[in-house]
């Protein structure tokens, strides 16, 4: 039996990518002083620039996890049509969506007892989360059952990594989405924090480096050290409206890693609100992410 693969707004998968792999998504939301909006992943480059420029100009937004009503409506559509659902959700350390989804799924079980909804807490976000969904989609195309795909993703999610640099920690700090304590939050004057997704699915600041250039090199170094089976692997660079830096990072990674394919995309609104403009994230499959990043 066929099944629907879903992600949510933090997976940062654009329309082409979702179409290519047949992946659906549950929309989160965000609000500013001008009201609430859906966290759409179909924005044009101009819309993204406009959004990040508004943040650069000092505008602040709050994010809203996927509402139960959205899950209920969308899940029921799939179940009614006879599909099972595999939901690869944003890290539970960053969003409560996976919990809500499980609750709604429990409610729907009574109505559709023969159908199943399987939720994976991906412990990660952005295209690293998306990459897990793509893997699931590839397995589905090979004719694997939903249970097999679910088990595979659960077993392999700890190898799904990202490494990132932010312009400032203040967005992460304001959003409550960084695990470092106060000693990391000094006034940093252009020193750039390097963050990774840790074993708990939190963003963890692991290093501080001097300036933009050094930050890009550090990301590339960490990635090169930790990536496994690079040949043929797709590395995703997502950026919060700094395409030039993403390109620069791409060539730094290419210098260090052979045989990988590198794709560049935007960080969507939800992750963007939490990390701030200028952020770069490189997502890859590598060593178990509970292994320390800096030796």
């Amino acid at each position, binding site marked *: 039996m066929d099944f629907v693969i879903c992600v949510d707004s933090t997976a940062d998968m654009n329309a082409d990518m979702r179409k290519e792999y047949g992946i659906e998504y549950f929309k989160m939301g965000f609000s500013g002083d001008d009201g609430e909006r859906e966290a759409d992943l179909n924005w044009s480059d101009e819309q993204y620039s406009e959004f990040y420029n508004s943040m650069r100009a000092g505008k602040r937004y709050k994010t809203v996890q996927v509402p139960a009503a959205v899950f209920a409506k969308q899940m029921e559509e799939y179940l009614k049509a006879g599909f099972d659902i595999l939901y690869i959700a944003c890290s539970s350390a960053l969003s409560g969506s996976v919990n809500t989804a499980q609750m709604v799924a429990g409610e729907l079980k009574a109505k559709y007892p023969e159908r199943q909804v399987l939720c994976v807490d991906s412990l990660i976000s952005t295209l690293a989360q998306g990459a897990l969904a793509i893997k699931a989609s590839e397995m589905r195309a090979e004719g694997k059952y939903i249970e097999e795909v679910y088990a595979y993703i659960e077993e392999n999610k700890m190898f799904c990594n990202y490494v990132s640099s932010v312009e400032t920690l203040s967005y992460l700090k304001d959003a409550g989405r960084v695990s470092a304590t106060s*000693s990391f939050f000094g006034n940093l*004057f252009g020193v750039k924090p390097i963050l990774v997704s840790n074993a708990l699915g939190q963003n963890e600041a692991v290093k501080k480096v001097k300036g933009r*250039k050094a930050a890009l090199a550090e990301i590339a170094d960490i990635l090169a050290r930790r990536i496994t089976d690079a040949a043929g692997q797709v590395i995703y660079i997502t950026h919060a409206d700094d395409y030039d830096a993403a390109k620069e990072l791409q060539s730094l990674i290419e210098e260090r890693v052979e045989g990988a394919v590198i794709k560049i995309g935007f960080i969507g609104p939800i992750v963007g609100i939490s990390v701030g403009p200028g952020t770069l994230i490189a997502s890859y499959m590598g060593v178990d992410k509970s292994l320390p990043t800096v030796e």
Partner: protein
Amino acid sequence: MQILNDMNVFPIPDGDTGTNMEMTMRGACEAASFLGDTLSAADFDRIYEGILLSSQGNSGVILSQWMKGFLRELSHAQELDALAMYSALLSASQSAYSAVVKPVEGTMLTVARECVEYSEEVLYEDMPLKEYLEAVLCGAEIALDRTPELLPVLKEANVKDSGGYGLVCVLTGFLRALDPDFIADFSQYETSAKVTAKNENEGEFGYCTEMIVALGGKEKFDIKKAIADIEQIGGSVVATLDGGFFKLHVHTLYPEKALEYCHRYGEFIKIKIENMTEQNKALKKNERIPLAIIAVADGDGVTELYKSFGCVTVLRGGQSDNVSTGTLLSAIDAQNADNIILLPNNKNIVMAAKEAEKLRPNVRVVPTKSTAQGYMALMLTNLEDEADRVYNSILTETSLTKTLVIAQAERDSFSNGVEIKKGEYFGAAGDDVLYASADRLKCVLKSLEMLIKGTEDITVLGFTSNSQTLREGETLCSDIAAITGNHEVHFSEGGMSIYDYIFALR
């Protein structure tokens, strides 16, 4: 709603608990507004559906599940009495727990469970519903009070659990539906919550002052007015009116004012005053930390910057005010840390620091020559790391960071082949004078150029003596960037006394 938002620290401190819970309950209200006078089982389902669909956020989802258990159980009840309410609340608590994959104690779950457990003990046959609900609310309050003990993150932030408080609000709402006069007690929670959220003000208030007053004075007592008045005297106000007794808790620098105020309304039954500043000191001393950093610095701006790193203590001192070994030792002994790293931040203090290092086994000195150099090293070090690695990193970064000071000469002199006239500005790196000029800006640029010529990709951090030198320095950013080949040029007002500028170049 805002109060709850401000209290929100767990699981994600994004300040939306109030909004989420309000949205969720609003769903219930909207669904209920379509109902008639008598309720069928389907009506309960309709209310739940309204709640579920409008629930958002973690707290909203848990609340919706709590309501689910509550409504499902209630729909079977013949009559809404204390026993039916007990069963409904018990079912609500179980349902809330089942909504969460990994239940965490110290949250609204704890409040949901413990209020029922508490009420169970006092429940008796034919207990009036209102009395029973008051007992539930009392249990909920006790549980809420305890949440920081169960969930360390709450204790750190000095708040009660926001979702738990939200549940207390909901229970209060139940009571208000039975008895509209219940509103008075609601404002009491609000007061304590407001203060809890504003914990950064703690410490300003010196005495924890508590009293019980038997009301009976000539003036008419109004609790709302009393709370407002007492808030003028201090913070963390918690006030309750119980029978003829007014109970007050307030943190204030002037406990006598609180006593005087209350004495107007009656006689004291009990008074307790404790000096919190002393308590905090004692408390702090008891918490042993793995690593403390002591930095010697002068200037308010510099001090603030150093303190922006949570683990750094600043000892005031510098070029004009050399710190003795004795002073350093007392600063060291005031720390309760396994490891202490000492940043003297001045050539003249390095010696004293080395002496202190000899006398205390857990102290290591990094011979930083200026506040800017020490700060640069801290910025580039992961201070969360193990003490040895932090020390090595600060040491390495310090050795890689050059430092330059700009000051005005107090007399004519000749040094390192440079002639300096009284009143001129000179730039010096360590003992070496590099350049002197009557033009301060020229002196800055020339000295920087001499120090970093030929090296690439330099980050520049400059502390300035005051706001004027800050503005002046900032006009130099592009000129400095041209020298360093890097746009990382940052100035900050340091407020130090002797030097006009202190630079770190890395």
